[in-house]
């Protein structure tokens, strides 16, 4: 088998000890890339990543931006789905194109307009979501995923008339975001069905099982705080969480070399979110638990 070429990936100026200044420069560079000063990249920006529709307005808007220098073909599709956990405590978004009749799916009666379009270079396209729920829709929350597929309008390799065998691969980008439709008073809550933690090597490993109460999805944050026996905080970590159905998470956080002794890990599950506007997050009472850990 032939190894194609001998060109190694160029080494970045960054490394594990990247300074804050270098990070800022990196961010600026990426922004310049995003706004189309490079002709190489092809990008799609989707905002916001979580859309909420109220039954009284029955409409919402999200934006697809094409910061590239070539047109982008964009397709929008709605499919019922939500995040589910796997046997390893990971999470994936499960799409259910044909959900059972009793599933709280909004995918069948929310339309995206336009569902397909070409976004010009540098332009931003508003995609309107219009809901036409069935008559007599019960109060509650209804869910869907918004699938935004984008690809460059230019062929990757031009056709040739020679005898060569060429390969032209089109790389498409697909973003899956969430849609929540609410009618009437909707509540949510979360309960902690299991919490275990241990220190293994240089990591704090946590195993969490969460359940949901109420009719709405629980959108919140897992906040872990590790304290030593003098109640000094050793570390704190946050992880956004969405509980649509029973959820099992296994998470690992770096703690470095901990001195031997007794520690306490505090877990707080609350509706704090930095990435979703506060009015869109259903309030719920926080849940907290603490565990003692011995580090030999």
């Amino acid at each position, binding site marked *: 088998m032939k190894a*194609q070429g001998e060109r190694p990936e160029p080494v*970045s100026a960054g*490394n594990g000890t990247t300074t804050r200044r270098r990070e800022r420069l990196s961010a600026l560079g990426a922004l310049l890339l995003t706004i189309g000063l490079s002709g190489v990249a092809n990008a799609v920006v*989707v905002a916001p990543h979580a859309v909420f529709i109220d039954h009284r307005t029955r409409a919402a808007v999200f934006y697809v931006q094409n910061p590239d220098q070539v047109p982008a073909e964009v397709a929008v599709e709605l499919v019922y789905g939500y995040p589910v956990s796997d046997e390893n405590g990971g999470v994936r978004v499960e799409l259910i194109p044909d959900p059972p009749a009793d599933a709280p799916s909004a995918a069948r009666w929310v339309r995206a307009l336009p569902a397909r379009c070409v976004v010009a270079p*540098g*332009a931003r396209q508003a995609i309107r979501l219009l809901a036409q729920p069935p008559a007599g829709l019960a109060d509650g929350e209804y869910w869907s995923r918004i699938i935004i597929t984008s690809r460059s309008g230019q062929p990757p390799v031009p056709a040739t008339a020679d005898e060569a065998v060429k390969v032209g691969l089109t790389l498409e980008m697909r973003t*899956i*975001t969430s849609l929540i439709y609410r009618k009437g008073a909707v509540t949510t809550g979360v309960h902690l069905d299991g919490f275990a933690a241990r220190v293994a090597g240089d990591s704090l490993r946590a195993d969490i099982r969460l359940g949901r109460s109420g009719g709405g999805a629980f959108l919140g944050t897992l906040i872990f705080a590790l304290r030593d026996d003098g109640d000094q905080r050793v570390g704190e970590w946050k992880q*956004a969480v969405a509980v649509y159905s029973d959820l099992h998470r296994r998470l690992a956080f770096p703690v470095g070399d901990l001195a031997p002794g007794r520690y306490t890990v505090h877990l707080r599950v609350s509706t704090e979110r930095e990435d979703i506007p506060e009015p869109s997050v259903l309030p719920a009472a926080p849940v907290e638990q603490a565990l003692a850990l011995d580090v030999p």
Partner: protein
Amino acid sequence: MMRAVVITLVLAGIAAGLLGPAPCARAQSIEASAVVVGGTLTITRERDLDFGDVIRGVPATIAVGNAASGRFLIRGTRGAEVSLDFLLPTFLMVGPNTLPISFGPTAAGHHTLPQAQNAVLFDPHVTRITQLRASNGFLYAWLGGTVSPSLTQPPGVYTGAITLVVSYTGS
């Protein structure tokens, strides 16, 4: 964080000089000059997976660390967890002719820095859960692969589509 996102979007729009409505195939949009939106998710195809010309009868492999591998940049909420899925073809086509393409268990990689040599390799057939960089919300993903032309492979430009699917797991 929210403010940073808005500023980024507005700066991008101003710099591109195109804050007006986008031309589109079916619908018109009406946009304000400043729009407050929540968190964003951006995928940038930085580089195509480029096999170039291939030799008949000789499989050609591009590894993650090769400069010809495909590279994506994902940007979003700092430290957020995302899932990565690749939708992969098994063959490429030109007219009625096909060219097999395959992706091994280390054909994909990800890293929060643009350093393919340090990427965490994974099987692109399996969903990968990872996190955007805590300091800037960046994540790079690479994809290599192998094409296997036969000795009698007809000439032409064999095409196919590879799709990277990115989703936040926390919303």
